[in-house]
């Protein structure tokens, strides 16, 4: 062959060329182990209690829980529960309560989010901060403060309303009724709903709206045809997320509903397992739990489908230039009044009444003479005792341990979900999502039953609450860590590998530092959520594991209004500051 010409390629091998397999080396062996352990831990945390819930509901527990075979299998609980007309009224109340509070929360949140994000509303940043600030206030405290404002006997607003007519006796408004429960629960949902909606509104690429404007569409057409359809997945996602929150909520139904004889599913579970007198009936409670679980699981099936599909909407572009703001013109004053009126009603007024009550020796009739009674004695009494210090310490232990445990698990699970090529990753994804579908009362109940039976001596201690809390918030943690890990390009890891770093060194020097902000963010969120949570400490409570939220509830339930108010003010101060710091340090990205 002459020089300068290229030899044609050798004839391609036939398609059936045998390929002797190269011996595989285990890639990231330690990671596989860690991932496997995390999966087992979640299976234990989630499946264990669930199994117990199912088993309990099919046993006759009227004589107490049977912890050794033979188990008294029976359908009696289902007969009892579904044969009782009270059940149906509880279901109806639950539905009305949920639908009503979601309506309130979304109407307020969508309006405010749109005003803040897309219009020339004055002092938008202040409105944003003040709408989000109450996310630090537990619903329990909100419910207590509204009870102080609106209870039929000596609620502040009732007293003021009676004044001009010289009327006597109870009323005219009664906070212990379904409409007011809806309003209070709705308000407690607003901060999170508002955050979810503003975040997705920001995510909608402004150029999509500008393209519509350039195509000759007017303002209302753009909102109707472009903005809302683009937001639909996010809105439905938020709606379902909050639906689960509200069906499973215990605080407001407990404080306001029980006193007024309004019963929802979550209170039925609580009452059956924590009766005022007599033995707890875990079987009946478990049956209610099964039903509640079904109610909250059904929409979550849609939630997953919607979240899956929403990735088709490539709205999140990372470009964050603000779209042209819409001039409100003559609507400016009504908009300002609406926003600030709502802030006053949902945040300022409840906090003021709590503060007032905390400086009163007892809850008397409101009036000028009450000024003479102002005293700080309540603070000394409520904050001085060993009970408060114990609760404070327990709360701290609970927050730190639940957050640490939850985040370590979440990290490991997200790692499997994002990075592994295992065919089990879809399963892990679902597994990490399940705890979100588990109502707090159900987790509480089933954890309780599980550790009554298992020979692990944590029943009645703070650790049983820690375990339940970590279970409850794995989903929250995983949402954050999955997003965080997905943001770290694989290339950064591969670059470390090609630079000669082994698995441990990659973690130590590259992944660890890169994931630290995500971990910290998730840690703080779970910490905050855990110390605010009333449901689990209440369901799993004993005299030895009292935390702040249960202490407040006990004082309130006992009739010690001043003590409850003092503790509420203290706790709200701590949590609002913590929540604000959290948002300051991490932005609103955490949601």
């Amino acid at each position: 062959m002459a020089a300068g010409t290229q030899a044609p390629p050798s004839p391609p091998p036939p398609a059936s060329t045998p390929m002797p397999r190269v011996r595989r080396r285990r890639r990231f062996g330690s990671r596989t182990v860690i991932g496997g352990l995390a999966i087992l831990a979640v299976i234990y945390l989630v499946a264990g209690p669930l199994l117990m819930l199912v088993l309990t509901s099919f046993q006759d527990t009227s004589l107490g829980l049977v912890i050794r075979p033979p188990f008294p299998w029976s359908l009696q609980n289902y007969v009892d529960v579904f044969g009782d007309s009270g059940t149906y009224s509880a279901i109806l109340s639950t539905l009305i309560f949920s639908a009503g509070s979601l309506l309130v929360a979304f109407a307020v949140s969508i309006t405010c989010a749109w005003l803040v994000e897309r219009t020339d509303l004055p002092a938008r940043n202040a409105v944003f901060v003040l709408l989000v600030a109450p996310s630090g206030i537990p619903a329990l405290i909100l419910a207590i403060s509204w009870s102080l404002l609106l209870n039929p006997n000596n609620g502040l607003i009732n007293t003021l309303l009676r004044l001009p007519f010289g009327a006597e006796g109870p009323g005219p408004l009664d906070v212990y009724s379904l409409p007011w429960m809806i309003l209070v629960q709705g308000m407690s949902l607003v901060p999170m709903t508002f955050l979810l909606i503003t975040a997705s509104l920001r995510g909608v690429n402004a150029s999509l709206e500008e393209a519509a404007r350039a195509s000759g569409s007017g303002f209302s057409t753009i909102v109707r045809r472009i903005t809302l359809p683009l937001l639909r997945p996010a809105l439905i996602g938020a709606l379902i997320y909050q639906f689960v929150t509200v069906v499973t909520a215990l605080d407001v139904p407990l404080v306001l509903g029980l006193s007024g004889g309004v019963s929802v599913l979550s209170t039925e579970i609580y009452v059956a397992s924590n009766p005022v007198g007599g033995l707890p009936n875990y079987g009946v409670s478990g049956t209610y739990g099964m039903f509640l679980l079904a109610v909250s699981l059904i929409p979550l099936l849609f939630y997953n489908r919607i979240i899956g599909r929403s990735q088709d909407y490539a709205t999140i572009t990372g470009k964050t230039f603000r779209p042209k703001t819409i001039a409100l013109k003559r609507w400016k004053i009504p908009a300002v009044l609406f926003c600030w009126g709502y802030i006053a009603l949902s945040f300022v007024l409840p906090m003021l009444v709590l503060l007032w009550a905390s400086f009163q020796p007892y809850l008397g009739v409101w009036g000028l003479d009450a000024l003479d009674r102002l005293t700080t004695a309540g603070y000394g009494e409520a904050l001085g005792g060993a009970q408060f210090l114990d609760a404070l310490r327990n709360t701290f232990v609970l927050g730190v341990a639940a957050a640490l445990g939850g985040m370590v698990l979440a990290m490991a699970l997200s790692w499997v979900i994002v990075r592994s090529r295992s065919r089990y990753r879809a399963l892990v994804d679902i597994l990490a999502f399940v705890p979100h579908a588990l109502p707090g009362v159900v987790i509480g109940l089933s954890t309780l039953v599980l550790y009554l039976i298992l020979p692990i001596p944590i029943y009645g201690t703070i650790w049983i609450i820690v375990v339940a809390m970590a279970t409850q918030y794995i989903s929250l943690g995983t949402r954050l860590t999955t997003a965080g890990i997905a943001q770290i390009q694989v290339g950064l890891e591969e670059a470390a590998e090609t630079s000669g770093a082994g698995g441990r060194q990659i973690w130590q020097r590259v992944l660890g530092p890169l994931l630290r902000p995500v971990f910290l963010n998730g840690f703080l969120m779970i910490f905050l959520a855990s110390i605010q949570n009333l449901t689990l400490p209440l369901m799993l409570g004993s005299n030895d594991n009292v935390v702040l939220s249960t202490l407040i509830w006990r004082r309130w339930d006992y009739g010690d209004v001043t003590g409850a108010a003092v503790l509420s003010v203290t706790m709200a101060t701590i949590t609002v500051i913590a929540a604000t710091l959290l948002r300051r340090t991490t932005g609103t990205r955490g949601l």
Partner: protein
Amino acid sequence: MGAIRVEHLFHAYDDGGREVRAVDDVSFDVEQNAFYTLLGPSGCGKTTTLRCIAGLEEPTSGEIELDGVAVVSARGIVPTNKRPIGMVFQDYAVWPHMTVAENVAFPLKVAGDLSGREIQAKVMDALALMGMEQFVQRRATQLSGGQQQRLSLARALVRDPKVLLLDEPLSNLDAKLREQMRAELRQLQRRIKVTTVFVTHDQVEALSMSTTIAVMNQGRIVQEGSPREIYLQPNSRFVASFVGATNFVTGVVDAYDDDTRSAYLSTPAGPLCCRTEHAPEVGSAVTVAIRPEALEIGYEHPGRENLLEGRVQVGLFVGDAVDYRVRVGDQVFRVTGPQRSRFHRKDAVVLHVPADECVVIPDDPEVPAGVQATVQDQGAR
């Protein structure tokens, strides 16, 4: 012995029950200090091949040797971090939580066999090599794209790797910067003498930088050779059209002159004389590739051979040349005319192509079926 030896490399994965071979029996050797380029369209398997060399992918089968050490063989696989490599990624993969100096020091720190002072000296050397000394204390995220590129190159070179792997390192840079980096990278590679494997889909990068190019398609190397061979003697329609613009003409061989190694063809565009080493069978159909810049355009031409008469369809002035489309018979030819030429639409012109510039493609699947066997024969000769 070469610095890199890749033998019968396969990388297959299962796509819903169907076996897909991203790399399908690839073998090549890279000489010490060579600049070896894997060139091909996206999905041709070039990046997978590179990642197999780096150890970021596990091949299904095959052998890879780096600097005389088997890193992939039937006996097992050496993990990425134990291979003597440095790699530059398409998206730079600069660690955002470290400063420039920390990024570059990383490979030395994890190796753990140098003192702090030695590391610092080597880091400064590597940064100086890339002209990055003034950015030592910057955070990596404060750098521009081009600077991040240099940083990641410094990081890849700092531990004196035996093999430098470059995965489309220039494709994220803007056009001006890319041209500048092209020259710089090649000079640098010559100066520090490191065996380099470069992956790109950009023919200009491949032609200008490489000592050897392997053109890949559908998981296989379809032609391997020097840039000149690849460009001037493409062995297939695919290579000819992927590496630069080409006009293809099919014709029937009327005669072959052994003395001048010339084949005389009749084509729809007119008679053509082609210089070719492989004597095509008289009477068979073959494809001829003609580069646009090989065609001379004019109203008339003094020669008598290889003249194609046509009409100008359009002339696009592109600065350093005029890009003409000329219709000859049924076919439109792309012709690169001189910068100052001004042929107008519908002008009758004569195209001339020297016989040396008519490349007979020996193995063309688009040649009618009857002549396939003869062409195959020549390939095997």
